[in-house]
């Protein structure tokens, strides 16, 4: 081997070791790296005993219940499991039924998630209002957010915006 090849081999093996180490660390810490748990992940977890955590999913359509004095109740869903959430405070502008949301708080023994902060989660779709309106008018919603006007035959109810993000 020439000196250059030796150096290249040294760098390649170093890179392999570093990647492996970082990969293992991230795999071990995967529970801490996630920003939130989906309702399904939470259901599979052992009892959280009221520990602080974040849950994320879609606000279930027709689940929003405003109780006055800024208290709201809604359901977070990932289409498999639902979690009832109660929250007192200001909601972000993008908070809507069918829209992604991340709530921070604790799951109480009564099975209700008591949130003390709610963030809206935006999906990866960008389109002008007219396009979105036209798609809704046709009674179809885009599958996987294909933007070039090929609306797949998926009814709005079964494929809400950003559903594939979870």
């Amino acid at each position, binding site marked *: 081997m020439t000196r250059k090849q030796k150096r290249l081999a040294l760098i390649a093996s170093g890179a392999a070791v570093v990647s492996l180490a970082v990969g293992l660390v991230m795999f071990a810490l995967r529970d801490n790296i996630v920003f939130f748990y989906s309702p399904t992940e939470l259901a599979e977890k052992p009892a959280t005993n009221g520990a602080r955590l974040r849950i994320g999913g879609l606000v279930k359509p027709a689940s929003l219940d405003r109780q006055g004095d800024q208290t709201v109740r809604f359901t977070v869903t990932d289409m498999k499991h639902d979690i009832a959430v109660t929250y007192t405070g200001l909601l972000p502008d993008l908070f809507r039924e069918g829209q992604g949301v991340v709530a921070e708080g604790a799951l109480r023994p009564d099975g209700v998630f008591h949130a003390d902060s709610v963030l809206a989660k935006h999906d990866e779709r960008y389109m002008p209002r007219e396009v979105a309106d036209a798609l809704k008018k046709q009674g179809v919603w885009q599958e996987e957010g294909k933007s070039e006007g090929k609306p797949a035959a998926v009814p709005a109810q079964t494929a809400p915006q950003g559903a594939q993000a*979870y």
Partner: protein
Amino acid sequence: MRNYANPTNFLAAARVATPILATLTGALLGVGLYLAWFVAPADYQQGETVRIMYLHVPAAWLSMFIYVTMTFAALGSLVWRHPLADAAQKAAAPLGAGFTFLCLVTGSLWGKPMWGAWWVWDARLTSVLVLFLIYLALVALWRTIEDPGKAARAAAIFTLVGAVNIPIIKFSVDWWNTLHQPASVFRLGGPAIAGSMLWPLLVMALAFTLLFLTLHIMAIRNEILRRRLRRLSIQTADADRSEFSAPASLGTAR
């Protein structure tokens, strides 16, 4: 002298290319910003706030592109010991820090009205912050070690180790639950962004890339000239005081 043939050629080419690139960058930035601010439609969810995306996304792409450029330059430094690669590495670090900073600031300004938070510690945001810190550390490293050859080698090793962060940034939104949305343009199944918004974004991305190329070439030029100046001043100093010290580094050591 053989090693300096390339920097000399580079200087000659850069002298011609810089004004052309600068003109192109200016024109494309003008067109891109006009498209982004006045032509592109408002988003159905985000309204006018979507216009931040035309700065944020190109800045984010560039922050990673510059790091990849720097990684290749680091290989050139370590394996081939090429002085032009040293200069390219050094010149890229502050530019990368700048684009990453722009990405973080525009993202934060978008996050407050859309998410309801200036900052969250999710995997995407955190890994980009780490990228920013790596850039800053590289700038500091270059300034700490006085000998350019030694500085280049130390910075190259640091750059290669830090490169592990790039795939983490890119795939963070796929590997873990994050508040940050997944990729809209480079994704399986094609872009999830309407054509009327995609074109202004691509123009802005090209403009940012040209901006980086222009600044990078100018900075490499400065770095080469700075090194020549350093060598000349050392030679002069050695000639002046040859009876006191041996002619140590004439730049031929490497």
